[in-house]
């Protein structure tokens, strides 16, 4: 019987090596696998390349991972954002490498990694600093940039419901990067708010087929924070 559930975050993290590339899903704290990020910190791996939409906010999640000195390089679309204090400190000390990527290119590079497309041309970034140092080509009259796929040694996602095959569904805007990140990890680990019996997630409902998922851990952490600005 296939059963991808593991009993703890520690068990989910087993065997992750220093120097890994870690893809972290989530957008604006929604659908962000916070327990798994914290689990990375406990588990101790360092010298990581982290791929995430931002360099983190406040002192939690990806920001904490950076603050603890575990991240050699961050690949993101927002480096500076409200509350990116830990990143700014570490970056100012020259202790982290930064690769800035337009958000659509970031999502597409991860999607390409999961779909076995090693590289693609995109008009995004043509004629801008983003194209600097990259191969470019004029296609249909527009300057396009050759971008490389991103694959993770590890991919961390948060699901709303998961079954023992690792089939996943997401909640509302918690979908975001999760399906593309789930497909792009050599080892994909999901935390899930809820457990579903096999068959409760119907063929039409399932967003991420379990084939993409290696380990699932039940983390009923509840709603993301409400921020009124």
């Amino acid at each position, binding site marked *: 019987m296939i059963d991808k559930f593991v009993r703890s975050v520690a068990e989910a993290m087993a065997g992750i090596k220093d120097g890994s590339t870690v893809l972290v899903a989530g*957008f*604006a*704290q*929604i*659908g962000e696998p916070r327990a798994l990020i914290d689990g990375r910190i406990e588990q101790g791996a360092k010298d990581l390349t982290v791929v995430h939409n931002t*360099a983190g906010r406040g002192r939690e999640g990806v920001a904490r991972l950076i603050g603890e000195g575990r991240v050699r390089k961050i690949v993101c*679309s*927002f*480096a*500076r*954002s409200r509350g990116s204090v830990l*990143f*700014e400190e570490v*970056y100012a000390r020259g202790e982290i490498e*930064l690769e*800035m*990527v*337009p*958000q*659509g*290119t970031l*999502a*597409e590079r*991860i*999607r390409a990694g999961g779909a076995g497309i090693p590289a693609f041309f*995109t*008009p*995004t*970034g*043509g*004629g*801008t*600093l*983003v194209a600097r140092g990259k191969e470019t080509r004029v296609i249909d009259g*527009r*300057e396009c940039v050759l971008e490389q796929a991103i694959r993770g040694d590890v991919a961390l996602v948060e699901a709303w419901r998961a079954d023992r095959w690792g089939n996943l569904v*997401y*909640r*509302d*805007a*918690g*979908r*975001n*990067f*999760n*399906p*593309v990140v789930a497909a792009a990890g050599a080892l994909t680990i999901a935390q899930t708010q809820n457990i579903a019996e096999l068959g409760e997630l119907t063929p039409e409902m399932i*967003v991420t087929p379990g084939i993409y998922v290696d380990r699932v851990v039940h983390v009923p952490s509840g*709603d*993301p*924070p*409400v*921020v*009124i*600005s």
Partner: protein
Amino acid sequence: MPNWKPWAREELAARVAQDIPEGWSVNLGIGIPTLVGNYVPPDREVIVHSENGIVGMGPAPRPEALNPWLVNASRQHVTLRTGASYMNHADSLGMVRGGHLDLCVLGGFQVAENGDLANWSRSEDDSAPAIGGAMDLAVGAKRIWVVMEHTTKSGEKRLLRRCTYPLTATACTKRVYTDLAVIEVTEKGFVVIDRVPGLSFDELQARTDAEVHGA
């Protein structure tokens, strides 16, 4: 004292909203562009897209109906219209880049008379800026309308012959809404199609680096 008054943020947002016809699909950037959504009449069906995979956003929720799992790309809590749907992030930005949105309204630092837009970084030496989805939106949407103040607070011009800040995308801007005027970007450059009441053409030109043309 000048005998004219710049449009306020809310007036500007309402002015943009007024120009969006029913049936258009639009993405509204951070800042004043986000406000635009509040001024589209509820009975006018405009489909608002958000980078994080939402098609068909509605206005901000009443506090008692707030869904913590539903935010827009500016991390503001939002609602869904009837008919809305979710996509993953790659498909959502693919929709943008693939030219399926009728309009994207973006904030700006500078716009050049050839339509070049700079809205993500004020210097090549800014080593840790925020790109977000702006470059994808600027190359992808069928039309880019930029909303910004006509000059900086210290009076520096922002409608230029050539942008001095790093570009977001080349030749993408179709129209600029400032606190002083509405300006089309055309083959002959900036063409003024509306001005705040009382502002003369010469006063507008004095605040604009590139030449402005009458409609």
